[in-house]
């Protein structure tokens, strides 16, 4: 019995680490910049297909793809910021939200054209291997994906806490006018922040591809997961996002163990609705401009 419980907890924590990086970029971009990036999950999906294509075409291990995804998606995020967000950020909130929704639909449809709606998997050499510790089975792939997620979370936390640029990003989130007063170029740093958020999304996509089957349509599920993490953990805090991700992972793991799999998603969506109802302000406190 104890072994079974420990397996559920270990599975939940490892899944939760991956969910945490899925929500991290969304949380930071929303918390620091006030941008509701509903296209976040589309970049998660692109990250999954980056891992898929690198593995299929070149035999690149997903671990390497995870590392590669960071600079690739960082640059992609900066391009999206410059091309899309700078054009709509002064518009009405609904226009910005519609623009990001449009970007999400565009990416999903381009993904469907490129990869169809077939479900894909990335099967690395260690996909079916497991580590057994005191009777607790830990699949290698979840250990590796969870470990990579933890490293990324630690790296983002250290960047925001210990570097001057990271502190400037936090400062920008707390008081943008004062940040300008001390000489921070808000537009430039916002591009960096958005790039960081998309880099997290791309890396999360790689980690998810290591663990779950995926298709271009799966991104809608990841969007709900990411929002669940953000709503549960609050905005802009790496530590809270980590805790929320682990909480979601544990809830899913426990639900999977005690009820039919089909109802697990139902429980999580009900949880999302309940939290939004209890926290009546929802995301509004953080939304200075909705894009």
């Amino acid at each position, binding site marked *: 019995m104890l072994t079974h419980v420990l397996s559920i907890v270990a599975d939940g924590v490892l899944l939760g680490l991956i969910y945490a990086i899925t929500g991290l970029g969304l949380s930071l971009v929303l918390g620091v910049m006030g941008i509701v990036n509903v296209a976040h999950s589309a970049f998660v999906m692109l990250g999954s297909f980056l891992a898929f294509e690198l593995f299929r075409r070149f035999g690149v291990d997903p671990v390497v793809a995870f590392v590669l995804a960071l600079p690739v998606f960082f640059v992609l995020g900066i391009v999206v910021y410059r091309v899309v967000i700078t054009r709509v950020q002064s518009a009405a909130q609904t226009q910005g939200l519609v623009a990001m929704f449009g970007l999400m639909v565009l990416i999903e449809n381009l993904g469907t054209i490129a990869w169809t709606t077939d479900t894909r998997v990335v099967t690395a050499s260690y996909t079916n291997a497991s580590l057994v510790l005191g009777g607790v089975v830990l699949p290698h792939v979840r250990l590796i994906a969870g470990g990579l997620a933890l490293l990324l979370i630690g790296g983002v936390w250290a960047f925001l806490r210990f570097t*001057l640029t990271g502190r400037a990003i936090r400062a920008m989130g707390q008081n943008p006018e004062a940040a300008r007063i001390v000489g921070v170029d808000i537009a430039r740093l916002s591009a960096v922040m958005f790039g960081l958020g998309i880099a997290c999304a791309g890396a999360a996509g790689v980690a998810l591809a290591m663990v779950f089957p995926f298709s271009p349509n799966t991104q809608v599920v990841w969007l709900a997961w990411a929002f669940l993490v953000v709503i549960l953990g609050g905005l802009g805090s790496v530590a809270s996002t980590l805790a929320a991700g682990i909480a979601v992972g544990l809830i899913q793991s426990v639900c999977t163990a005690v009820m039919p799999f089909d109802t697990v998603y139902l429980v999580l969506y009900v949880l999302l609705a309940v939290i939004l109802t209890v926290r009546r302000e929802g995301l509004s406190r953080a939304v200075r401009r909705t894009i």
Partner: protein
Amino acid sequence: MTAPPLRIAGLHAGYVPGHPILRGVDLVAEAGRITVVLGPNGAGKSTLLKVVAGFLAPLRGSVMLGDDDIGALPAHRHVALGIGLLPQGRSTFPDLTVEENIELGGWSMRNDRRRLAEAVEAVLTRYPHLRALRRRAAGSLSGGQQRAVEIARMLVPDPRVLLVDEPSVGLSPIVARQVYQELQALRAEGRTILLVDQDVRAAIAVADYVYVLGSGRNDIEGDRSAFEGDLGAMVRGWLGV
């Protein structure tokens, strides 16, 4: 320190097209002096400072720092030119520590970490009471302590020109007096100070030269001595009573 003068000529500015708040303001803030801008609510004092600080683009006219026209420069580029701004109200980063707040004052020096560290140390030496608070979140400090953090942060890049907007708002009389004393100390170091204030008596007490705006235009101006008479009458005149 050789601070350049700040010269404003024919300045028009506003927030809504066709409705300028400033309608031809002329002003000179000389080096090593405190130039005070007074006026009733709606006269355009804060708008003037917003333009000079780069937060609002002028519609017409010029803002010259020495020989450089800074009117079109965005706010974040002013620090590198040696301009510091102490805005009205709280402007700390509340969740950052005092030390992190002060360090961010040297953002323009970020590529020279040694110089930045020395500048932060110099400021903490200047304000030793902040050294004891340096690990505290700025948002947890009293209003007066936060004002000190803001002043310290402004001084990290050693600005030659200081733009100060109603520095005593929300402060106790004792702390407010200390802030005005600090402005006098900064003037003694040769800095150019442009002070916009509602506290007529306190501002005139530290002023070298005073401008009074009315409806977005220059109204009256003169040395401090010209304003040391019946201040009450002047304020009553603004209020129209």
